[in-house]
């Protein structure tokens, strides 16, 4: 890491405890592209080491969490090891992990199925048509999976979409709802209240209990929510019984 980077991120990367059996490696205290890449790449490196005593790892927006067995390895041994790994390279300059996929999901924007598109477009200072064109062409990455099983946080959208969360919650959005706030989408796994704006609707299920691959998405995967008409969407939703909602999946060549 260069001295210049250090100036922009005083105190990072940071190693800090989570409960008695966790370490959090944080690359930033705000959402930024390089910190998310660093987290994804660092997690891949940690996983590759298969260190005894490490029970599981996960990424959040700009951090890597490691759960360990305190009977097998101490917190200090964990942080010594992780400090060594951190020093090996400039993780903020890391490439994205391999084995990622691009998933194109047919999406109806607006209509009664996603009633907050107009409001979101107005807040972003765009016409509805321009909003659909922009959102529908945005290639977003799974920044992290969290909150509910398989549920992705996707970003980043262009700067116009830096909309705050609503002050009042929407009481309920359905499974497959595409909602937007703070330059991110999330795609709901289960019916939920939300402070984000419901701009699109898909028939994509992020969590498919009982399926061979119950979790449809992994951090680093990319998604495009391609606009389709409401009648076309309803036909897709009707036919797609596998939870994929008509999605087309391809490997991303590195």
């Amino acid at each position, binding site marked *: 890491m260069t001295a210049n980077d250090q100036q922009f991120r005083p105190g990072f990367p940071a190693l800090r405890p989570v409960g008695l059996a966790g370490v959090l490696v944080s690359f930033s205290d705000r959402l930024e592209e390089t910190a998310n890449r660093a987290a994804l790449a660092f997690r891949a490196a940690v996983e590759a080491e298969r260190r005894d005593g490490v029970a599981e790892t996960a990424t959040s927006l700009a951090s890597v969490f490691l759960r360990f067995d305190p009977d097998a390895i101490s917190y200090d041994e964990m942080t010594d090891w992780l400090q060594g790994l951190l020093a090996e390279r400039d993780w903020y300059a890391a490439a994205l992990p391999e084995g990622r996929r691009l998933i194109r999901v047919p999406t109806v924007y607006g209509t009664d199925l996603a009633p907050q598109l107009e409001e979101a477009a107005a807040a972003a200072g765009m016409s509805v048509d321009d909003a659909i064109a922009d959102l529908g062409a945005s290639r977003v990455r799974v920044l992290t999976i969290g909150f509910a*099983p398989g549920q992705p946080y996707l970003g980043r959208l262009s700067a116009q979409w830096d909309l705050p969360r609503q002050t009042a919650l929407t009481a309920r959005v359905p499974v497959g709802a595409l909602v937007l706030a703070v330059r991110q989408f999330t795609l709901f796994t289960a019916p939920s209240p939300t402070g984000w704006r419901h701009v699109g609707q898909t028939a994509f299920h992020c969590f498919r209990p*009982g399926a061979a691959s119950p979790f449809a998405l992994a951090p680093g995967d990319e998604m495009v929510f391609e606009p389709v008409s409401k009648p076309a969407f309803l036909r897709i939703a009707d036919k797609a019984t596998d939870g994929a909602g008509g999605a087309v999946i391809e490997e991303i060549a590195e």
Partner: protein
Amino acid sequence: MSGLRVHQAGPSCTVQDLGRPGYLDRGLSQGGAADRLALAEGAALLGQDAGLAALEIAGFGGVFEAECDMRIALTGAPMAAEIDGTRVAWNASHALYAGQRLGLGAVRAGSYGYLHLGGGIDAPQVLGARAVHLAAGLGQAVAAGDLLPVGRDRGGETGLHIEVEDRFAGGTLRVVEGFQTPLFSPEVRARFAATGFTRGARANRMGAAVECPGEGFAAEEQLGILSEIIVPGDIQMTGDGRPFVLLPECQTTGGYPRIGTVIPCDLPRVAQAPAGAPLRFAFVSREEALAAEARHAAHLAGLRRAPRPLVRHPGDIPDLLGYQLISGAISAHHDHHDDHGDNA
């Protein structure tokens, strides 16, 4: 397939085991029994593995009928329990013969009671576990008419009792600092540690609210914190600075700041505290916490040898001759032959 038929069930009886570790990266929390110690106590009473599934009963039990001969054990929050109308002991194992009915009433202390079957509840595994995860939509609460399939029981004694630690009335919870503790000023932390709380009305398998009169416990930068990993035991301060202790079925990430984490061996005390029970939080060092965990692990390891024959008053026994009075002798025999291991 045979097992235990549910004739009537309280609103939140779910099959639970030790849950599904390893899916945090996919947004699925581990889940599993709210009181893991009660799982271990039931396993000790039946001489079986603590990873077998049992029925977790929140608040109120129900009526169950054996469709084959089986062994059962009752642990966790004590409830009124009877077999064919005869009161039976809690923290104990019993024989339940085909056609016999088990009735479980309301909890008398605590929140979660457990009904264990010899051989475990052989519900289908999903993602490597049988635990129902209501928040994730994995499985559902049992309902009248359901059959709880019984696993293959290697057999063993019944009529055993186990002494348990009273964890059903609140108490002091040991807390370690975490990465967000410094977001709270030293004054707020000190006031938090000095405050007497009660468990609030809102509580489920995801977490339990704790309440106190007066000012809340706000972080210095309550808003604008990046959503970050959550672990069970985390004490998160919701928007108004009111604490919420997270339990096994919590969400996996969250944006509310956490003042610290209740250590794992004290989590049964949180889960079992009934509404209104007094609770306090005491910050301890990592070393103290690890020592407490080590003592807890030793206690768990010793549970297998803890069961003792039930001591009954003859007047409580309606059919004295129907009991296998010899079981006490067998148990005493085992006490001298512990080294032979699994002698059930």
